[in-house]
């Protein structure tokens, strides 16, 4: 599209009043079960809208209501207020019970992310079974993150937006107790040569990196 046409369009379709913009994002958020990013909202709204400002108004309007505007990462979603959960027994979905290993692994990923498999094992002192990671991946609570810039360039795990949504977190920084853990130095990675070695099951490690580097050599 040439500049000229775009300019014309802008003047032809002036952005709707703020109250109307607020209605619009309200409708869009309402219609989708998944969190919607500001970018997605913008793409859907008429040209020239200030979605961020409309969101401020909308959040204010829903403050204290039975339905809330929740921020999840860069995205927003309407969710019922947590204190009314007891009214919704009919809607409650049975979440698959996670094993203790899966819960701990999830917590380690959330608090230490991005974290490699070897680091998870270091913290837990046992090897991570495949089923555990698999289960968390399938729930879409974790995903692969970028590779570590350490020898072998191991893949890392990070938590997803779905994780934040499920636990009602705006941000991974809002994880309970994160600040205290960090202040106590418990999130630092301090390997100590000669210390008790992490559990076995490491025979795959070197090979894995080999295969990978081969893949990307050129």
């Amino acid at each position, binding site marked *: 599209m040439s500049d000229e046409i775009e300019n014309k369009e802008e003047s032809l379709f002036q952005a709707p009043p703020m109250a109307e913009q607020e209605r619009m994002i309200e409708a869009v958020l309402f219609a989708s079960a998944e969190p919607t990013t500001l970018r997605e909202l913008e793409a859907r709204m008429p040209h020239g809208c200030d979605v961020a400002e409309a969101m401020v108004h909308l959040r204010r309007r829903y403050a204290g209501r039975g339905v809330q505007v929740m921020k999840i990462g860069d995205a927003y979603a309407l969710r019922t207020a947590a204190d009314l959960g007891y009214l919704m027994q009919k809607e409650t979905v049975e*979440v698959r019970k996670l094993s203790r290993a899966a819960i701990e692994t999830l*917590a380690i990923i959330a608090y230490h992310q991005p974290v490699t498999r070897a680091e998870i094992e270091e*913290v837990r002192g046992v090897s991570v079974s495949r089923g555990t990671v698999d289960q968390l991946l399938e729930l879409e609570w974790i995903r692969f993150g970028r590779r570590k810039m350490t020898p072998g360039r191991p893949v890392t795990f990070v938590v997803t937006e779905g994780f934040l949504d499920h636990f*009602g977190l705006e941000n991974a920084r809002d994880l309970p107790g994160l600040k205290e*853990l960090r202040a106590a130095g418990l999130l630092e990675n301090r390997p100590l040569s000669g210390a008790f070695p992490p559990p076995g099951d490491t025979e795959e490690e070197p090979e894995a990196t080999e295969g990978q580097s081969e893949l990307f050599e050129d």
Partner: protein
Amino acid sequence: MAENPVDDDKTSVADRLATEALIIDVEGFEGPLDLLLTLGRTQKVDLRKISVLHLARQYLAFVEHAKALRLELAADYLVMAAWLAFLKSRLLLPPDPSEEGPSGEELAAHLAFQLERLAAMRDVAARLMARDRLGRDFFARGDIQMVERVRKVTYTATLLDLMQGYARTRTRDEFRPFVMDREKVFTMEQALERMRAMIGFAGDWGDLTSYLPEGWESDPVKRRSATASTFAASLELVKEGRLEIRQSEIFAPIQLRRKD
């Protein structure tokens, strides 16, 4: 109970139950670090101020006890026991300045750090799971009914699909028997195909070895494979009634002839 050995017959039910309880206990721990954490908790102090020496003794006693009961202990537990025994000696002996590596104190501090970290992760994991959760405490829109019915098909896939797809193609590769690792294998299908083309010209008795494909005669591995498959293919053709086969005595050359 390990102090006065008794006959198997006389072992009391209580003893046996105790033994079993311990097995369950060992299995109830998720590895040595978990066991150490539990032992450490009995000291009832801040994990940072824990007596690693005392902890090491407790752990070693536990392992000794388990051994006395002839329990199978996972290698992890024994590695930890060895390491703790080493740590104990380092803590008890005066430091040797010529020795390399971290001191006993540093190792002990690190172990305390590991235990504290594990305990902290358990704690936050519990807090995380106790949060208000989607689908249990708060809810998404229940009816995602759309107003307009404009249909446009778009395609999607998740990263998991992608990776599983890749995994699928790669494993298929591993199972495809002839691409990489079978260059020295002459399959029966190959032999059969070759023989079918050749037997038309085999009017008189000819040695089996003369039917081996070119380039397969010298390398012993290839020769063996080609001979076996050619022989198997010959038998197949005999069965089909297109070939005759004979051998004058054991280990004598095998001969083939077209059957008209």
